[in-house]
């Protein structure tokens, strides 16, 4: 447990020291979303109609891209070998890193969501559910992405490979996440969607550490 907290603390400190990484996701989130009005045109009701979808897809991309760096730096400077040889089980280390990563990127995204909702003239009635859904959804994205990041360590141009591996696995989170918001906006119950999100989250909480740790071990061979 102590080791777990140590790793979280270290990763948080690293993230805060190089502000870049912490801001990367949010900036990407907002800037990319802001591109769509230019591509699609400014009609408010059209934008409002597609707002939840756009916000979710962009959030998904933002997390995905920030995840590329999750293990890379540690891999390249030799920290990962040391971590693997440390008393802390690698699975725990992975969870700690993912958690720290989510705190520095997932949370800011949620905080930025209202901004985009306004930008897209989204009916703010759905905002609460949107943020709640993101609270359940973004950790899923981080967890799934972590597996991709671990699998591609040491691959040529590993980073570019991650989206291909991970995006298909993101689809359930996307569907339930948007579903929740749409339901709320159309006055249906968002609850079932949220529960499904939670279920997926639990599954991933089990799979990710095992898969990632296995991937990291063979990456260091």
């Amino acid at each position, binding site marked *: 447990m102590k080791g777990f907290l*140590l790793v979280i603390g270290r990763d948080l400190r690293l993230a805060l020291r190089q502000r870049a990484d912490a801001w990367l996701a949010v900036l990407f989130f907002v800037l990319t979303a802001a591109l769509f009005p230019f591509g699609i045109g400014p009609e408010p009701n059209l934008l409002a109609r597609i707002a939840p979808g756009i916000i979710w897809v962009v959030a998904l991309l933002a997390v995905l891209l920030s995840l590329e760096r999750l293990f890379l730096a540690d891999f390249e400077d030799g920290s990962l070998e040391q971590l693997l*040889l*440390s008393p*802390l089980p690698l699975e725990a280390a992975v969870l700690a890193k993912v958690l720290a990563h989510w705190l520095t990127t997932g949370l800011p995204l949620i905080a930025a969501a209202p901004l985009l909702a306004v930008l897209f003239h989204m009916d703010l009635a759905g905002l609460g559910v949107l943020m709640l859904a993101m609270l359940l959804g973004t950790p899923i994205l981080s967890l799934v992405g972590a597996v991709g990041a671990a699998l591609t360590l040491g691959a040529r141009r590993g980073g570019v490979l991650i989206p291909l591996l991970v995006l298909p696995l993101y689809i359930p989170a996307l569907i339930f996440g948007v579903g929740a918001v749409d339901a709320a906006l159309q006055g249906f119950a968002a609850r079932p969607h949220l529960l499904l999100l939670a279920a997926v989250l639990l599954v991933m909480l089990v799979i990710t550490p095992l898969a990632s740790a296995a991937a990291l071990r063979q990456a260091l*061979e």
Partner: protein
Amino acid sequence: MALFEGRSLHCRRGGRDVFAALDFALPAGGALLLTGPNGSGKSSLLRLMAGLLKPAGGALLWDGRPIAEAPEEHARRLHYLGHLDAVKPVLSVTENLQFWAALRGTTKALGGSLDAALERFALTDLAAVPGRLLSSGQRRRLALARLVAAPAELWLLDEPSVGLDHASVGRLAAAIAEHRASGGRVVVATHTALDLGDPIPLSLDSLAPPPLPEMVW
């Protein structure tokens, strides 16, 4: 007293045999000196000993028990120093060292042992400097400081003296001697002169690379 040994080790990398039928035995307080030309497999052997690589054949034993049976336990008793220094550019020298020491669970003694470790490799007046400002040798010294900051029974050092100036090489030799005096053991791969007192020499040169492997994956 426990013995660390390798029995008819066989190492294959990138689909080709690096060495085969390699044996060694390292008693407590002993030092194993790996020599051999480039590409003879020194680094590979060290990674095998650390458990980072799996041998294609043979076994590594600690006190007669295969380390493969309890990898975590083995990891806990060793320090591995590879070509990479695991120094974070944005963390100060102290912070870098502290994290790894704390992870080894030596928090209570920390304050003392940290300063001692820094002192040992003359890093004290660099303590507050961020890692990215370190020169290659300074970075290497920081990596070495990890060895003494948190105790471990077995040191695996891959060309530890790379980039070190004269004084530092001396400090390294002293640290190793002290470690051995207190019953620790060390395996060192190096091309340069490094005074280990009475090392057990292990030359990987002799092992001629075996012919075409039978099973090629």
